[in-house]
């Protein structure tokens, strides 16, 4: 992370610890952070990955997003947002059109809803599928009649 970006982030998001490899950001800062990074030249939308973390206090979800600057050195910024039992997060579709399919995939497989997504339907599985396969409580060998 270069100095200008660090200054801009520290000025805008004072609560975030910038020394981590993967920044931990509150859910409200998710969209503003992406907007700021896009202004700073991080225009390449790399990926979004959601994961399910069951715990004794209940379910937690984590959504990680990676952006990259397409210049020499390829600096990238990754941040994650921790969500509660009813996971929903602001969609990055207005900033990055690539978020369309990526967020649909995470909605399908992990079950994180993205607010403001133009077409929040399943991508990989059929539309009547029950459950989200990448949650830890979903059995991998779930039958699906009559095919398996």
């Amino acid at each position, binding site marked *: 992370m270069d100095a200008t970006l660090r200054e801009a982030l520290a000025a805008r998001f004072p609560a975030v610890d910038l020394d981590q490899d993967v920044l931990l950001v509150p859910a409200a800062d998710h969209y503003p952070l992406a907007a700021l990074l896009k202004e700073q030249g991080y225009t390449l939308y*790399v*990926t979004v990955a959601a*994961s399910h973390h069951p715990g004794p206090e209940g379910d937690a979800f984590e959504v990680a997003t*990676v952006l990259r600057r397409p210049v020499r050195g390829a600096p990238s910024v990754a941040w994650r947002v921790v969500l509660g039992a009813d996971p929903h997060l602001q969609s990055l579709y207005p900033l990055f059109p690539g978020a369309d399919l990526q967020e649909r995939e995470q909605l399908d497989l992990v079950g994180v809803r993205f607010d403001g997504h133009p077409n929040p339907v399943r991508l990989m599985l059929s539309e009547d599928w029950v459950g989200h396969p990448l949650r830890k409580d979903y059995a*991998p060998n779930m039958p699906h009649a009559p095919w398996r």
Partner: protein
Amino acid sequence: MDPIFQPFRDDPHYPLDRYEAAADLMLLNMGPQHPSTHGVFRLKLVLDGEIIVKAVPYMGYLHRGVEKMVEGLTFAQMTPIFNKHDYVSPMTNEQAYAVAVETALGIEVPRRARYIRTILAEIQRIASHLLWLSTFTLDMGGVIGGGAAMMMYNFREREDIFDLFEAVTGSRFHYNTHCIGGQRHDLPEGWVQRVRAFLDRQERAFDEYLRLIRNDIFDLRTKGVGVMSADLALGLGITGPNLRASGVDFDMRRDAPFHAYDEVEVRVAVAQGCDAYARYEVRMAEMRESVRILRLLLDQLPEGPICGSKPVKMANAVRVPDGRGYTAIEGPRGEIGTWLIGGGEDKGAKPFRLKIRPPSLHAMAAMSYLLPGHTVSDVVVVLGSLDPIMGEVDR
């Protein structure tokens, strides 16, 4: 391009009822089993006459649940799983996985192993682009002498490449030659000379391809078709040759070197045309560039051990502690990344969550932006020029 289609090119979710159709709107379904959709991919097209108004991609016909499956496998077992995503370039997919786990564990890979990886990756890049060229021209019929003529030419060199891989790994297709910390197989004797001979043949073959391709039909079918601006490409997350064809000078091999790319000079091919022809130009230039890089690498190939850590003897030999990180390498189709959260079952021997970042899925998202305003016959050209592999899109 008629400006009436511009709203659909800007936003694929633009409501259809605001469009004033010249004729009745018609729905056309392409796929999932269609000879030229590069696998099982379905495209719903809304047509006004012969012009596409809206294109909606549907995928998931090859969704095999790999990300769920790897949560039940140990890290040592996982290499053969990964070459089945992008089945046209299995070698680079294995490398993406090996690099991800090595970065997470901080394992240093010996210099010879890094060179072998680079050599294999570059040969795989040629093989992958050859298959792209054959299917692209096969779909398009842009070759005088019949659609399959180009495929026969490309497969001649591709068979040579598979023979080279078979000589190293023993398998034609799914190699399983990478392990965490290095390579599983060393290069056999005389292999380097064989590669050199192959490179000479390949260089001559480029001229043969050009004699078949360089004609007006090819130019008419590709120039100005599927124009993707640099902003759109970056926003969609498109990487690799497709991004460089939109005029963005960015290549992970040069800009974020992995393997042994920091020890050779990589000349990045960039085209400013943004259309299907530019994508063709970039891939052809990349193949020539791979031949040049391979010659340099073969000259510098060092001796030494091929594995930095002890050989795999147990299924749960590798344990990744709790933590998360993103690593990526440049494959033939773009950035193959892995988002890895360690510390899964069996004290970290299995991953908690492993997400593969597929370059093809990002390329498929471009379909609904590029197609409005084109005719039906341009669909296969745009799809072919993006070079998607459905195994990677759906995983």
